[in-house]
């Protein structure tokens, strides 16, 4: 969006002021349910005559803190304390599009970046209207009035609360381009604020999808084909139906749903189903065939993501060329809250209560499953028990809708952990070939990175990749930051027969591992320190150099404690510059992480405490994947079913993490994901320092190191 957002306001039927994004009339196809199509439902901000201030948060809260940070953007410009703002989750609506992703999507570490301008402007516009209304009442110049925590104050110290002028404000013309506060006047932005969702998350009252309870609700457990891509051939439900509390057994589009008066009863009866499965197209798929597919696919020339100079010629002309192949496994998201959806299909409309990152796609999936128009489906977003990209998928919604439709009652469909782990859209595997060439003076003159893997975007948003390289396959690769004259990066799409999905930091985590590991290899090939080698090639990247210098200073890089080893990685992703040092030691031949240091320049911070929390979270997410993360496929079946075989980080393996955030006036960068991507290369580079072993595949368990 080039121009500033244009807002509309209106007096609501209950009185008060609402501020919504103005849209061309023809563009609204994803509205809320009929009757819910009012300005209120599409408004970010409602100011009631009772002084209530409600912010409809159009991004999902999955731990990353938008419930607080986005409310801060409104509060800063509106001129109220953060505690005065009540937060609700917004319904689907085109007004809530994420301009960076082209739909109402929470993902890609975009929430603050996308909202930065829009929500501050919404707050400022509301404030302008309220002040103007108050000034008119006092018959003074609006410019002489000010706002103090929800109260407008006149030059002669008369006071009007927001609620007292909200009605009058709603009748005023909405100004365009209301100016925003300069950074020097921020009182909230950049100051650590307590998370608004913490109280409800420490007393059990926060409502996640799994917690939704509707009157007369039934519970469903779904038997899905154990082989990915399989289907139900026949089934016998005689025994299941005879068990206590069982109301029905129905065949849905994604498996057999057992419906009961409690979830546990449904789950027990499900075990008594006798099902014959059609194995489908993946009956012979296993880890080896996937690896072979990728290696075969790698023979093709992929779509070009970056082409500076002539890398092929430079490599051909060089006497000093290094090459390596890197390989990465499938990974599950394993959100701690298993997938679930609570639905109520009635003749007058459909309600779905769902922890989702994609309200509009969820709405469309429910409408299709119920056989109703989009406008008949109301989406109620709950708190998300983890997102990490898993809840960009809506695969668990249709069966829930079909079950409620069949039962004519509300139904809560809940997957087991095993359902969740064996029916994920997995992080894509990768087979990547990389080469670097030096000239006679030892200068790195060519970099060639040939990536091969399946494309998530080709399935999710095919239009994006119709003619272009998948942008979510070449992150942290196409933006190669090192000053090398000849750079070639391409991505060869090679499908593997199963769905792959966006997983925290998406291709950053795949590609940063290759880029930063191989940069280490190249440094050692020239007998240079990994730090000095990188620094010399980053002279034109001041933001990167700054965080690199900061983190290596804080970590005493190169001077690890006795028995410890350091590894380094850097990356720019989501508009954030980041450098990480891993400090490890060896214990009984296993790599143990002692400490992780991370420095970042994420531009202007909104809630600094959340920035730090997200770095810590991302690093720990990356550590799980690095050490143990691997989904294996045998005959089309996922072998890991629960946390016993899909190990994740626990308290006793959690290393100390030190985060250093550079004060920056640049536009905000994303922080929910990038730190995940630097973990594997930083730790593997430390392992090389410790053992001389260069790891070109993960996880560490494959190498006996975890």
């Amino acid at each position, binding site marked *: 969006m080039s121009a500033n957002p244009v807002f509309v306001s209106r007096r609501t039927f209950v009185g008060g002021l609402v501020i919504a994004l103005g849209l061309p009339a023809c563009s609204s196809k994803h509205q809320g349910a009929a009757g819910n199509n009012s300005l209120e439902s599409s408004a970010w901000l409602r100011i009631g005559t009772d002084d209530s201030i409600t912010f409809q948060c159009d991004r999902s809260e999955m731990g990353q803190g938008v419930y607080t940070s986005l409310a801060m953007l409104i509060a800063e410009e509106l001129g109220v304390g953060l505690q005065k703002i009540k937060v609700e989750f917004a319904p689907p609506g085109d007004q809530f599009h994420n301009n960076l992703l082209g739909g109402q999507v929470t993902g890609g570490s975009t929430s603050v970046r996308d909202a930065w301008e829009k929500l501050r402007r919404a707050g400022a516009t509301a404030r302008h209207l309220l002040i103007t209304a108050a000034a008119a009442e006092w018959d003074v110049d609006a410019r002489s009035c000010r706002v103090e925590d929800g109260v407008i104050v006149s030059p002669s110290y008369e006071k009007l609360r927001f609620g007292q002028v909200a009605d009058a404000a709603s009748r005023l013309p909405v100004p365009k381009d209301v100016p925003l506060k300069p950074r020097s006047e921020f009182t909230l932005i950049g100051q650590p604020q307590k998370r608004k969702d*913490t109280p409800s998350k*420490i007393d059990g009252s926060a409502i996640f999808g799994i917690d939704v309870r509707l009157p007369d609700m039934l519970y469903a457990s779904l038997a899905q084909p154990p082989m990915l891509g399989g289907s139900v051939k026949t089934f016998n439900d005689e025994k299941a139906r005879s068990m206590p509390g069982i109301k029905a057994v129905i065949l849905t589009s994604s498996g057999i749903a057992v419906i009961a008066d409690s979830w546990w009863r449904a789950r027990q009866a499900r075990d008594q189903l006798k099902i014959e499965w059609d194995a489908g197209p993946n009956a012979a798929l296993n880890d080896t065939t996937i690896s072979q597919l990728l290696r075969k696919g790698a023979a093709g020339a992929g779509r070009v993501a970056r082409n500076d100079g002539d890398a092929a010629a430079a490599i051909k002309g060089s006497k000093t060329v290094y090459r390596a192949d890197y390989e990465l496994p499938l990974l599950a998201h394993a959100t701690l809250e298993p997938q679930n959806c609570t639905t109520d299909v009635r003749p007058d409309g459909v309600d779905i209560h769902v922890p989702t990152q994609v309200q509009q796609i969820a709405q469309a999936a429910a409408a299709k499953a119920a056989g109703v128009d989009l406008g008949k489906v109301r989406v109620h977003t709950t708190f998300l028990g983890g997102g990490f990209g898993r809840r960009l998928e809506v695969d668990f919604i249709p069966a829930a809708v079909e079950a409620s439709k069949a039962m004519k009652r509300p139904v809560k469909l809940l997957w087991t952990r095993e359902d969740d782990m064996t029916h994920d859209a997995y992080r894509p595997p990768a087979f990547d070939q990389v080469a670097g060439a030096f000239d006679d003076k030892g200068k790195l003159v060519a970099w060639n990175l040939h990536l091969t893997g399946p494309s998530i975007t080709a399935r999710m948003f095919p239009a994006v990749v119709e003619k272009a390289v998948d942008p979510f396959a070449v992150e942290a690769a196409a933006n190669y930051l090192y000053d090398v004259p000849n750079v070639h990066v391409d991505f060869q799409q090679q499908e593997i027969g199963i769905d792959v999905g966006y997983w925290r930091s998406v291709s950053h985590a795949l590609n940063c591992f290759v880029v930063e590991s191989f940069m280490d290899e190249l440094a050692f090939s020239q007998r240079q320190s990994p730090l000095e080698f990188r620094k010399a090639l980053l002279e034109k990247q001041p933001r990167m150099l700054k965080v690199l210098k900061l983190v290596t200073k804080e970590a005493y890089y190169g001077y690890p404690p006795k028995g410890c080893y350091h590894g380094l990685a850097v990356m720019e992703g989501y508009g954030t510059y980041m450098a990480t040092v891993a400090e490890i030691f060896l214990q009984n031949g296993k790599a143990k992480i002692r400490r992780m240091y991370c420095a970042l320049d994420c531009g202007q911070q909104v809630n600094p405490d959340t920035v730090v929390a997200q770095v810590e979270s991302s690093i720990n997410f990356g550590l799980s994947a690095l050490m143990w993360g691997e989904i294996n496929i045998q005959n089309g079946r996922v072998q890991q079913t629960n946390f016993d075989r899909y190990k994740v980080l*626990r308290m006793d393996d959690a290393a100390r993490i030190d985060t250093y955030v550079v004060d920056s006036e640049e536009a905000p960068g994303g922080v929910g994901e990038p730190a995940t991507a630097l973990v594997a290369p930083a730790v593997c580079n430390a392992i090389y320092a410790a053992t001389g072993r260069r790891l070109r595949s993960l996880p560490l368990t494959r190498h006996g190191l975890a």
Partner: protein
Amino acid sequence: MTKLNVNGKTVEVDVEPEMPLLWVLRDTLGLTGTKFGCGMALCGACTVHLDGQPVRSCQTPIGSVGDKPVTTIEGLSPDRSHPVQQAWIELDVPQCGYCQSGQIMSASALLASKPQPSDADIDSAMAGNICRCGTYQRIRAAIHRAAEIKSGA
């Protein structure tokens, strides 16, 4: 009918004795603060206190509970005033928050038996509770802080 003592109240439920306490709490009694994560006592999201001891309610059949008091996150304190809850607020521990009921129940049981736990005590008492958001560093700090609050510091 099975009689249970939950959060100081006696309740009667009409379910099979093998039904896990977790589902009685959540679906029969509507106490949804206790979470389902794995169903195999691997993740700790369902941790409650049974007679003061932390147990995984997903693996606790109600037939085995008897008259032992059950405490869930809803019953830990009436007003978020338990030292662990205070510390959790002070350090803004939760992210997605899904595991935190279980973390808090494990942490409060630890402090009840060890008022001044060491890092090693925390490792062993908390290793059964998975946090996919990786809030471990803050959990550790908050347990130490709760110990201080409890001792009046």
